[in-house]
């Protein structure tokens, strides 16, 4: 080992060191006098390559590089929830206090507040045998989340010393264990974990519980399981971010990790604003009490953008291991893939499709495969659900990131520009989207909502497909020439589209809709359809039915019937019956 390792070359965020043997792959290093954070991404006998997570302006050949001997780590402990970090887990609020409104380089702050006291309750006693992942203490982290301290997965042993319950700081030792070799280990309120390595679990569980989002088109038409993976691809302006926000606000996960990866700064400040004002209906507390934000906006250094996805995922896994259901929103994975491409280009690697590196599919699959519902090492159940937005270039779904994402996610919510132009939100195209979770989830729906739910859903899907085929004809010759039963399909499909699929995120009742109401809405639409079908069969023209204004009522039932007055659906159905009865009378 040389006495000091120094910079040899600089090209954007990539720095090279010549003739050194002191670093290992993926080791975290500090670069230059201002100690910019970097990571070793390539080693050969001549050059060692470092990607630097901050602006490299002003670095010089000859500036020192300090190794840490450890891979890129995150600090895990209480204080993560309700915080906002950059891509390498530096708390942005603390950085603001340190350097003001603009982020200066080499800002060195601890990821978590070391001086804050936590009210710790010890759960073990001297003599207890502990293995990796078992819980030895807990403390309230926010009003709704209890933080459970777990033995790092790599450790096990017998408890030799226990501190009493009380207030402790992050680095205080509260339990000491002795491993098989007789070595003692201090357990504190925090631990470290390398971001690129999945945390271990006891076993994977089947994905048979839905993640309920309160968004009709997602819950009913294309459901996702807890521990599942979903992609939301869409060109700009189709509402990717809006959908991600809705999911983060309303889905029934215990904890949300929201990764703003290479996206807009104003969007992050909107999330901050909105989530602190928004009250979670389940706990009555602000949304921020169950949310972690990772903000690496598009103007922040590109290498940290690449890391931000893994940082978010590791935090999510950490809470999963405590026995929570965690959902991680990554907005957007395309920016992350572009960061890969950018760094790959700087390394002069051979590009594959559209300049993306050849390892893009394997990185994507590594990422999505870290999702899952699992049994934790301590025997409880937790899950990580990954919902990744994809921003296809030129709204073209055949580009490499969308195509590869499609292969590794089981739920595909395709956003459609023409729907967005018509302000049909959520602009999820019902013809292009799919979910592979139906078979896994149908038993759950059957048990909790009854066989009808599945029947209604299938009928609605069939009607939409039928409409789509009919529209081909209508486009050519107009709708007037269609027979009445087909006109009825078109009218009904319109009611489905406007009344059911379209959902208003700004309306207090419509922004989140319980499954029971979703079912009744479908029921009402299909009820009118079935009744009308009989009437048309009796040779009464459809115009007589449309004149009654029933379809308009269906379109507005989402507003007219509040979520807590579902019995009003009975009246609606009665009204439909009486109005129609007048026709045949």
């Amino acid at each position: 080992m040389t006495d000091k390792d120094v910079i040899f070359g600089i090209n954007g965020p990539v720095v090279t060191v010549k003739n050194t043997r002191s670093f290992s792959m993926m080791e975290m290093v500090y670069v230059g006098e201002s100690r910019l954070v970097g990571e070793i991404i390539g080693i050969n006998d001549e050059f060692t390559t470092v990607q630097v997570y901050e602006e490299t302006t002003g670095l010089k050949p000859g500036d020192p590089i300090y190794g840490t001997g450890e891979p890129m780590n995150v600090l895990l402990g209480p204080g993560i929830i309700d915080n906002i970090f950059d891509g390498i887990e530096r708390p942005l609020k603390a950085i603001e206090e340190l350097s003001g409104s603009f982020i200066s380089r080499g800002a060195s702050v601890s990821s978590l507040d070391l001086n804050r006291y936590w009210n710790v309750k010890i759960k073990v006693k001297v003599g207890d045998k502990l293995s990796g992942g078992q819980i030895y203490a807990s403390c309230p982290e926010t009003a709704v989340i209890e933080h459970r301290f777990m033995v790092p997965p790599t450790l096990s042993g017998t408890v030799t010393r226990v501190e009493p319950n009380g207030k402790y700081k992050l680095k205080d030792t509260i339990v000491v264990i002795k491993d098989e070799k007789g070595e003692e280990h201090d357990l504190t309120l925090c631990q470290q974990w390398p971001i690129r390595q999945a945390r271990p679990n006891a076993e994977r569980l089947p994905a048979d519980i839905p993640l309920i989002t309160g968004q009709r088109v997602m819950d009913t038409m294309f459901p996702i399981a807890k521990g599942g993976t979903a992609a939301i691809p869409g060109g700009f302006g189709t509402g990717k971010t809006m959908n991600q926000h809705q999911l983060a606000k309303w889905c029934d996960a215990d904890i949300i990790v929201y990764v703003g990866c290479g996206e807009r700064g104003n969007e992050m400040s909107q999330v901050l604003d909105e989530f602190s004002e928004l009250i979670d209906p389940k706990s009555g507390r602000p949304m921020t009490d169950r949310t972690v934000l990772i903000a690496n906006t598009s103007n922040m250094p590109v290498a940290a953008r690449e890391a931000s996805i893994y940082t978010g995922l590791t935090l999510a896994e950490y809470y999963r291991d405590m026995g929570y259901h965690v959902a991680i929103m990554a907005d957007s994975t395309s920016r992350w893939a572009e960061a890969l491409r950018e760094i790959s280009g700087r390394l002069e690697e051979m590009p594959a499709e559209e300049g993306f590196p050849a390892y893009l599919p394997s990185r994507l699959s590594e990422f999505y495969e870290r999702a899952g519902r699992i049994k934790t090492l301590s025997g409880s159940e937790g899950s990580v659900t990954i919902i990744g937005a994809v921003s296809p270039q030129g709204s073209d779904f055949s580009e490499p990131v969308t195509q590869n994402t499609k292969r590794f996610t089981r739920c595909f919510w395709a956003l459609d520009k023409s729907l967005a132009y018509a302000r049909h939100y959520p602009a999820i195209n019902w013809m292009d989207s799919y979910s592979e979770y139906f078979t896994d989830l149908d038993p759950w729906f059957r048990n909790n909502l009854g066989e009808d739910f599945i029947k209604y859903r299938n009928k609605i899907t069939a009607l939409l497909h039928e409409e789509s085929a009919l529209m081909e004809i209508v486009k050519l010759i107009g709708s007037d020439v269609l027979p009445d039963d087909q006109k009825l399909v078109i009218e009904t499909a319109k009611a489905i589209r406007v009344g059911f699929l379209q959902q208003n995120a700004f309306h207090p009742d419509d922004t989140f809709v319980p499954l029971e109401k979703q079912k009744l809405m479908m029921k009402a639409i299909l009820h009118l359809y079935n009744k009308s079908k009989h009437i048309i069969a009796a040779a009464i023209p459809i115009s007589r039915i449309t004149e009654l204004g029933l379809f308009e009522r269906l379109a507005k039932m989402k507003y007219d019937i509040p979520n807590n007055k579902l019995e009003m659906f009975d009246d609606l159905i009665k009204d439909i019956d009486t109005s129609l009865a007048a026709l045949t009378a």
Partner: protein
Amino acid sequence: MILDYVGVKEINGSLIVLDDVEGASFEEMVDIRLDNGTIRHGRIVQIEGKRVVVQVFEGTKSISLDNTRTRLKARPMELALSPEILGRVFSGAGDPIDGFGAVYPEKRANINGTPMNPVSRIYPRNYINTGISTIDTLMTLIRGQKLPIFSGSGMKHNELAVQIVRQAKISDTEDNNFCVVFAAMGVKNDVADYFRRSFDESGVLSRVVMFLNLANDPIIERTLTPRCALTAAEYLAFELNMHVLVIMTDMTSYAEALREFSSSKGEIPGRKGFPGYLYSDLASLYERAGMVKGSTGSVTQIPILTMPNDDITHPVPDLTGYITEGQIVLDRQLEGQGLYPPVSVLPSLSRLMKDGIGEGYTRSDHQPLANQLFAAYARVQDARSLASVIGEEELSPTDKKYMQFGKLFEQYFVNQGYTENRTVEQSIDLGWKLLSTLPRTELDRVDDALLDEHYIDDPELISFDVFRSAADQKEDED
């Protein structure tokens, strides 16, 4: 110790390579003195040991392997800033070119800026009244937003930008804090001149800072122009607390300059030959819009870009759309029909609009009206495509209504003219009038209470004449 390095090792496009350089730092500025006494400026873009690659702003014309002396300046590219920059004209690299001498700097700032901490951002909520119906009603511009104009060669984007500046200023008359930073990248002399003249006519010239890199200026300078402009804008907004409107035209030329530079550096190209980092690079510009805590100023950006071949999926508009908070798209067909401003309503969007309008900002019925107008106009497109197949006569009565609505909408709502300045109230009322030409049952995006209040049942009462210029009316009478 100041060292001059004699000669260069290699010249490639706008790049020169120097050998045996000691103590060079990344992105450091250099001066290159030619034997004939002229000085050129450059910046270090790559270092490999003692070999450094320098980007020469003014180009490498007449540089030979041994006619130069290069001196390191030991600082990155900085812009001299003081309140006096208002009313001045600078080159694309930030040097004064209006003959009034150098700026006496109060401070110098690195033109790359530093990223704004997302925690320190204030979420933009105040709308800017542009006096243009389509923009105010359907894609409201918000202070601190970045809202580009997607246009094509030969369309009236420059006029639109000038009209926004002129009318936005009028609504702010008592507010002396308004100023404009104008960055021209690769635009024609005439265009730069048009902007200067228009600013002069509307009396804002003394509140404009101009950075001009014209079509025949060196391309390396062009890659610096928006950075200089935004550094000036940030200074005016966040240190002098002014509301700054930044107009950057033409972003396509900027991206092409970046491509030229990238390919001369031998980088691996991405889509259409643009460098793989085009997104990050554009983001480092666009993200400099916004508002921060601790300052009352704001930076609002209106970048203008011409879509090559009117193709919105071209990398530059595509990546821009992913970064900016919406877009105003201009349409050649509307322009061809003589409508001004030719704003294509459906693909246009303002993402920040929803929080900056409605009760307390504009009017409580603003958002529902906008939704309904969008939905109805989308329906018009369906009716039109059907009409082009089966003929307008064969359309159903409802579709015919939509055809008529479409015509009126374009004629009175979109088409407003270069000089007309409408209040938001007027625009919203006009919107309701237009919707009232449709059957009430068709308006499914608005609830009944609003319809009761605004829907005009009596067709006799719907008249659009007040919004037509006197000349048009006279023509009708004749």
